[in-house]
């Protein structure tokens, strides 16, 4: 299934989506956003990477920063922090450059590698966008972590690609329904910038609203 231009969702959302479907829905469906110390540090960190006009190119390397991408197959659109183009026989022509080039996306993250696959999924989604836009296969992709100051290569295997495709599909399903999943409190909630909008802890008491009201009304009767 392919999507229309006005159906595209933010690619970076897939990162939130894997972290917490509710936080993704609060941002994307309900258009809520709150900053906290982590998100502000993130912006500051990215300021150093993101400058679409600061490109470097040489005979053996083209570096493109803040490269806008999209995929109609995934229905996602976003910006790659950095894409390197290396000369390659099975690469593609690039406007303004001679020779054949192959893209390698590199996504910058401020902190440390995450215990789950959300960074990898975001990067893989970028790779799939590049493949679709340039008609090329992307074999290599890297995550750069600010805390370790290292690039880690991510294997864009079928399992990861399936995870991207399925997540994107599910995002579109929730978005079409305008549905925000219920909250489930977990320890990561503490560091989420949306915690004060989400109020994950009140969910457990949902059925108690009646009891709560009764408690006051029957206090001294």
């Amino acid at each position, binding site marked *: 299934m392919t999507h229309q231009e006005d159906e595209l969702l933010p690619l970076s959302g897939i990162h939130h989506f894997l972290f917490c479907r509710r936080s993704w829905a609060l941002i994307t469906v309900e258009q*809520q956003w709150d900053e906290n110390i982590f998100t502000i540090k993130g912006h500051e960190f990215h300021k150093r990477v993101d400058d679409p006009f600061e490109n470097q190119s040489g005979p053996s390397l083209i570096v493109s920063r803040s490269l806008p991408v999209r995929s109609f197959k995934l229905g996602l659109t976003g910006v790659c922090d950095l894409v390197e183009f290396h000369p390659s026989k099975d690469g593609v022509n690039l406007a303004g450059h001679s020779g054949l080039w192959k893209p390698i996306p590199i996504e910058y993250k401020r902190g440390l590698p995450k215990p789950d696959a959300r960074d990898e999924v975001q990067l893989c989604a970028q790779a799939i966008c590049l493949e679709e836009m340039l008609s090329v296969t992307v074999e290599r992709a890297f995550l750069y972590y600010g805390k370790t100051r290292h690039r880690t290569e991510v294997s864009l295997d079928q399992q990861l690609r399936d995870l991207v495709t399925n997540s994107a599909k599910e995002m579109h399903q929730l978005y079409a329904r305008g549905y925000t999943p219920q909250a489930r409190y977990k320890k990561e909630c503490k560091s989420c910038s949306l915690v004060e909008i989400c109020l994950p802890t*009140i969910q457990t008491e949902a059925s108690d609203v009646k009891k709560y*009201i009764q408690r006051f*009304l029957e206090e001294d009767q």
Partner: protein
Amino acid sequence: MKKLGNVLYVTIPEAFLSLEGETIIVEVEEKPKTRLPLLNLDAIVCFNWIGISPKLMGACVERKINLTFLTPYGKFLANVSGNIRGNVLLRRKQFALAESKEESLSISRNIVYAKIYNQRKVVERTIRDHSMVIDQAKLRDVSEKIKQSIQSAKDAKDTEELIAIEGYVAKQYFSCFNEMILQQKDEFAMNGRNRRLPLDRMNALLSFLYVLLANETRSALESIGLDPYVGFMHKDRPGRPSLALDIMEEFRPILCDRLALTLVNRRQISPSGFLIKESEAVLMDDETRKQVLTAWQERKKQEIIHPYLKEKIPYGLLPHVQSLLLSRHIRGDLPEYPPFFME
């Protein structure tokens, strides 16, 4: 919970505000008077005529600092807002619930429960704290009548009936308001509740506090993404923030009435701070308004445990918290709207 920021009240009619870097400059007659940082500001409430620079307006919109213009007498003029915030789907659900008689009744009923309960609490507190100096019989009688009205509110079949009950309770409650005035009794005596125009000092004071509360409630609803003009109990009327008026019913007794009584009973404001016009309308002077605003700010900082969230919050966040809980109900996360009861 979100942090309660400061509110800048500009009460000098000739003041002009502008932005320099991250600092607000307040000028009076083109001379800089005060500078203060934009950081940690929740709202700017202008009672001035001269104005504020577009650049500062822009900064306020960007940082979700609520910017409101009132006339020097406290009547609402305008509010500056940028792109409509929040979620069209949430607003659609809000409209759908407002269309449904059953749903409107359920939300309104919970609001009325809390309003009545909190009014009774104000009366009961006076009995508890000042039993020696008050007409106990009168207050106990009112308290009993309010208590019985809770049952009537339970049985109300539609919002009209509910509004009638709420009106009856308000009448009872205000009938004993004078008993709760312990100092400066003659000067601040009120003869029922009147709004346009306030015909005595207590009414002038209450009206002013209600304007402040309505403004903060409206802005809280907006920042949650709800439409403050589409209410469940108050009917739609162009230019009237019905939902804000609905929600603030719960807070009036706690935030405004009690504060008004405290200000008078502790002699923090004096009768001479009010101007009685030829039409008998009563106006507050600048100095008194400043004292009221200061007390209002102080009151907002006092902390309570929210009985539903079981979390410590300052009074000033109540409009925000209740808006949030209402949006949770509208969205379907909560089966009913949990109103605020004063413990």
